[in-house]
């Protein structure tokens, strides 16, 4: 397996996401574009890694739920919303933009075969930084 071609890329290259809120709890889905990417995400996107990504917002425990039929995960992140929609001082009181923390800030060695064929990330010259 050493000859798999990988590149350092954000999750945005292989997955999409949406954030929802209930009180002070944020939930962020993570959905693979290609079914083949599911196992990679399962191995690489752990609860601990996601917790570290949201720690600066005061986030507590993270629980990951797996939905292999849908090539998807659901991350439930406690205390990430500055008290929730009615208490937060953030511009984004629902935390709707937070899905892009997960997509933008977790940089991994991603096998090129997991990137959708039509994605700009397929181009090795594509400058995402």
């Amino acid at each position, binding site marked *: 397996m050493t000859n798999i071609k990988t590149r350092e890329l954000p999750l945005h290259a292989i997955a999409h996401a949406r954030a*929802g809120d*209930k009180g002070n709890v944020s939930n962020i889905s993570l959905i693979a574009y290609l079914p083949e990417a599911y196992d990679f995400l399962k191995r690489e996107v752990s609860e601990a890694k996601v917790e570290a990504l949201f720690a600066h917002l005061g986030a507590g425990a993270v629980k990951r739920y797996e939905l292999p039929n849908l090539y998807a995960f659901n991350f439930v992140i406690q205390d990430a919303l500055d008290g929730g929609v009615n208490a937060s001082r953030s511009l984004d009181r629902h935390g709707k933009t937070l899905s892009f923390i997960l997509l933008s800030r977790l940089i991994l060695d991603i096998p090129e075969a997991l990137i959708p064929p039509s994605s700009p990330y397929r181009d090795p010259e594509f400058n995402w930084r």
Partner: protein
Amino acid sequence: MDRDVYIANGAGFSGDRFDAAVPLVAHLATCSGPRYLMFEVLAERTIALAQNAKAKDPSSGYSPYLENYLRPILHDVQKHQVRIVSNMGAANPAAGARHIHRLAEEMGLKPFKIAVLTGDDVTSYLDRQAIIEAETMEGTSLAGRDLCAANAYLGGDAVAKALDTGADIVLVGRTTDSALVLGPLIHEFGWQEEALDKLAAGTICGHLLECGGQVTGAYFADPGFKDVPDLAGVGFPLAEVRADGQFTITKADGTGGCVTKATVTEQLLYEMHDPSCYLVPDVSADVTEMQLIEEAPNRIKVVGIKGHERPEKLKVTVCVDGGYMAEAEMSYAGLNALKRAKLAGEVVLSRMRASGYNEEIRMDILGAYSVLEGGRAERMEGKNLPFDGDYRVRLALISEDRDKAQLLCNELQHLYCSGPAGGGGYRAAVTEQMASASILLDRALIAPHVKAEVIAHD
């Protein structure tokens, strides 16, 4: 009743488009079978605001946009026998019903039979003090605060009762959003309390529809990576539901947007926690074995939803006064703008402290550190932000004291003349806040008060 039931959603939140239902009604007119149009327009705080409005004027307290949503489609829903189910009733469904009667008369339509559902407002039959002192699910205490509203989330069974009156239009206050879909399905198919898998399927169908365009390509586009055709003309969703609980999500012909496995999956997990127990009053839905099948372009069939025993307690959202929020912003641009913006914020912070305000004040610099960074400057250390940039300082606080909230705005405004060089574009607002928390109450406390009633034209 074994015919498929067609349910469309014309609004997914209180600020949604007024014209989205028009192509849905045209589409429903071509479907043979019972047809429904729902509108979901009731956010958590909306009902508390409506409660305040009703206290001031007993003829108000329902959605201020009721006429905006209904006028464009009322003629055609009558012509094509499309029944409407909506939570536009908010804190005063009966007054909303009378408004529709007047509107129909003005439009020269035959009278509608309109039923309302009440009983969600637990303050009308439970002790206010007990509500405010109840243990909250969040662990926060509301004791000592002014109670604005407390509404139980009613289920699809209650919505079905209102439809059982034979009403053309059903107005409710607080129900789960998905109950606006599950209600018509229980009414049409006669699903009983034990039909857990079907109740779960109807609930998930409602969950997929309840946010309007969010399942048909809206809130999805990421240009170049996740493209959506004709987002400006996005079609709102429609479900075709079979008696066995299987259903297909689609949209009106000739509209923009798209229905794909990806759009449906994003909406499925939206505001969901544990996918094996999505709790509503009627059932606990389990989507871990669910499958999506692409029947045709823009047609996704959903199968494999399981249901488990319904919860013993119902969720009640309690709203209390939450003080005042102040937000104030000013722009700085060009060379060294980031440092000038930061200095502006620091001047305001130091003057607020000098005034004796010692609670938290959040400072963001838009363009440098804001929503994703939690307004934390240290997150930008070592990052190469443009020296020639366009930044906007934003200060925000929440206080019980309206004067302190106003002071924050004033202090930033003073920087027009007394701040760093080149500040401009000051905007600020002080807004009244509502705090909320959830409590759980036994069904038996609520059920006897849930009533469906037909409202005649007066």
